[in-house]
């Protein structure tokens, strides 16, 4: 039995924020879940996957090929009356955004929850976009937990809210709320889970041709008016304290503010509004709050999402009220916060001295050696990189070569001694960007993409490359898993977790099926053969695909031999 299926109602478990979301999904009786993995959201999908694989709970889960597909799977299930959830990292929402924007118009029947896990400071990401803006962009309600207990409660609530509004509901976490453990009280498991519904045809609802879409946009705005009145009365939007200095925060910043108030001992000098249900902006709560304080400090990571909204409100009701935050230099729009940063800002606003612990003089510290993450010892990607490098050297092309790369462990090929990653945008960008370089330069172009990333968003770009006659060599690093995020399956995998018997797609057949003729396979550990093949392929100036096939060594240790 999976630990997150425990029937010990009322007991506490030390759960990650992400695990708490899974428990909430189970307690809410969701029937269909789908995701593409991405840090810091991955543990949500992993736990749903193993729960569904073990088969002792009625839950459908799939690792979809990308976030867009996953959101479509969840959306249509919810349209058919089955509660559903999809989760992704922040940039995954970009991929799914085409679905999101119109899904907001057509809505859902059963509850649907979309979890976006943002990554301020970019611990494992290529940007630190603030996905709260998607709530405003798509016009959808959003909840923001600050602790694992809240993450579970909000997940259950999000399904109910979604059902009552017939709109999907966004739960936005960040690395620090997804990857923190705290005690979570287990609630009862549902007696029944609805896994099958029935889709009631209604083209005037579900088929947003212009005439329908015009109607549905109106419905969306009306539903968001209802959402507003619900947010106004939400128990997740809470004021504490009666002081004349107002502080407003959401997400992990709530934790920093709570600690700062306690450590500074300023409980009686501040009023603190925590917004767990920050969108739609709970206008009357905010108005009341603003009118009862002299000034307001807004504590939020990344974009001035709340701050801008509060300033607009102040213009209407309290022109002279001081709103402090990013625009006043108290906080940055970059990177995640830390407790001291927030404590300093609050002390400054209250005009009190911050007593700092005595820190020994560390000025004698030498520059300490870094420990950049690196490809594992024995990783097959290293071998492939070295074979390409050697082939190019022998061809005298190593100076002229460029290496568009992609998202996965192999992005670490950026670092010395390999240094074979020159250009990267997003999932799948190796293929599309190689096309651009091929028409705009005379470089020899060798690009790298992993098997999972290839299925995520490499296929259609490769069709483009063939059709438009671009010239580059695409190396597909096929290690038979989605390694970086913790070894999730993808359609191409040969080595499988026990019980995972989905049909397999051969990457080679898929590539040949597009019409590409120069398709080769190598075993990266057979260095001589690999180098001579790359020499042959790279000597020609046309589109070619080399599939470097060898399992991730960590994954092989886990599941190798068990097919």
């Amino acid at each position, binding site marked *: 039995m999976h630990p997150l299926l425990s029937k010990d109602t009322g007991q*506490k478990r*030390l759960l*990650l924020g992400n695990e708490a979301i899974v428990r909430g999904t189970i307690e809410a009786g969701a029937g269909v879940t789908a995701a593409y993995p991405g*840090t*810091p959201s*991955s*543990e949500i999908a992993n736990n749903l996957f193993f729960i569904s694989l073990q088969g002792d709970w009625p839950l459908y889960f799939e690792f979809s090929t990308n976030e867009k597909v996953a959101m479509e799977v969840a959306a249509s299930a919810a349209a058919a009356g089955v509660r559903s959830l999809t989760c992704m990292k922040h940039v995954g929402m970009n991929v799914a955004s085409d679905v999101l924007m119109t899904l907001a118009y057509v809505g859902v029947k059963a509850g649907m929850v979309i979890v976006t896990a943002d990554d301020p400071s970019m*611990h*494992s990401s290529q940007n630190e976009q603030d996905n709260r803006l998607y709530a405003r962009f798509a016009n959808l309600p959003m909840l923001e937990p*600050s*602790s694992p207990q809240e993450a579970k409660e909000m997940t259950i609530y999000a399904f109910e809210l979604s059902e009552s509004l017939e709109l999907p509901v966004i739960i936005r976490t960040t690395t*620090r709320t997804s*990857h*923190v*453990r*705290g*005690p979570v009280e287990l609630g009862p498991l549902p007696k029944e889970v609805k896994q099958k519904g029935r889709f009631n045809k209604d083209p005037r609802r579900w088929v947003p041709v212009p005439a329908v879409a015009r109607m549905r946009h109106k419905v969306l705005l009306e539903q968001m008016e209802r959402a507003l009145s619900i947010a106004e009365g939400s128990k997740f939007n809470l004021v504490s304290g009666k002081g004349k200095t107002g502080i407003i925060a959401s997400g*992990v910043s*709530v*934790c*920093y503010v*709570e*600690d700062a108030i*306690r450590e500074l001992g300023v409980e009686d000098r501040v009023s603190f509004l925590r917004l767990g249900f920050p969108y739609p902006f709970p206008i009357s709560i905010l108005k009341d709050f603003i009118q009862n304080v002299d000034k307001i400090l807004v504590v939020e990571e990344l974009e001035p999402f709340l701050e801008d909204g509060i300033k607009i409100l102040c213009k209407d009701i309290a022109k002279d009220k001081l709103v402090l935050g990013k625009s006043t230099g108290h906080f940055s729009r970059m990177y995640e916060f*830390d*407790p*001291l*940063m927030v*404590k300093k800002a609050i002390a400054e606003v209250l005009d009190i001295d911050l007593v*700092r*612990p*005595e*820190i*020994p003089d*560390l000025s*004698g*510290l*030498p*520059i*300490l*050696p*870094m*420990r*950049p*993450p*690196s*490809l*594992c010892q024995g990783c097959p990607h290293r071998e492939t990189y070295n074979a390409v490098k050697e082939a190019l050297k022998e061809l005298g092309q190593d100076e002229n070569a460029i290496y568009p790369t992609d998202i996965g*462990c192999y992005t*670490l090929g950026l670092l*010395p*001694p390999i240094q074979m990653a020159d250009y990267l945008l997003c999932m799948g960008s190796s293929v599309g960007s190689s096309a651009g370089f091929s028409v705009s330069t005379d470089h020899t172009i060798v690009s790298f993409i992993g098997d999972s990333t290839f299925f995520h968003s490499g296929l259609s770009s490769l069709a483009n490359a063939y059709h438009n006659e671009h010239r580059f060599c695409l190396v597909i690093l096929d290690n038979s898993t989605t390694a*970086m*995020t913790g070894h999730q399956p993808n359609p191409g995998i040969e080595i499988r977790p026990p019980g995972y018997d989905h049909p397999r797609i051969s990457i080679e057949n898929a590539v040949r099926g597009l019409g590409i003729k120069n398709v080769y396979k190598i075993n990266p550990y057979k260095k001589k053969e690999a180098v001579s093949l790359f020499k042959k392929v790279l000597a020609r100036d046309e589109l070619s695909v080399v599939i470097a096939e060898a399992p991730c060594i960590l994954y092989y240790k886990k599941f190798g031999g068990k097919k």
Partner: protein
Amino acid sequence: MDTKKILFTGVGGQGTLLASRLLGEAAMAAGMDVRVSEVHGMAQRGGVVESTVMLGGVKSPIISQGEADVLVSFEPLEAIRALNRCSKTSVIVTNITPIMPITVKLGQAEYPDVDYWLDFMKANYRRVCALEADELARQAGTSKAVNVVLLGVLIGLNEIPVTKEMVRETIKTQVKPKFVEANLKAFELGLSRAEC
């Protein structure tokens, strides 16, 4: 109860996350308010892995400069790197077995003088406990138990309100059955070395 902010630091693969989780589980089983924060993803591939355990109602998942009550380091360079998170009143527990970073192996950087910095720690911080945790783990029967050895030292110092009984129970329930015996032994060895 007083608050305690405990910082664990080490290198990917050393089991820092398990140590902080065991401590968190033990504290929760004893009815304490606890938060544990972890680093997942890219950093785990041989990079620095940090986790924190917060006791007594601290909500923040991270520890700012000078604010760690206790630092538990699995590797001496990482202890030095984390010194800016400590103050004169901090307690430091550190393993002294180095793990060479790739940048040192490639000759791009120099590993610091560990003896010098251990003396510095002893002279400047309230309590410092430095030991060969790798060796003790081997004595316990598994080199992987470095984390539990260090957890033993931490508990033995009586600096945080988590007792050895609580941790022993947690090891029995949370560690895979076949590793329980070695881990309990590692924990006892750690306890016995909590002298500084």
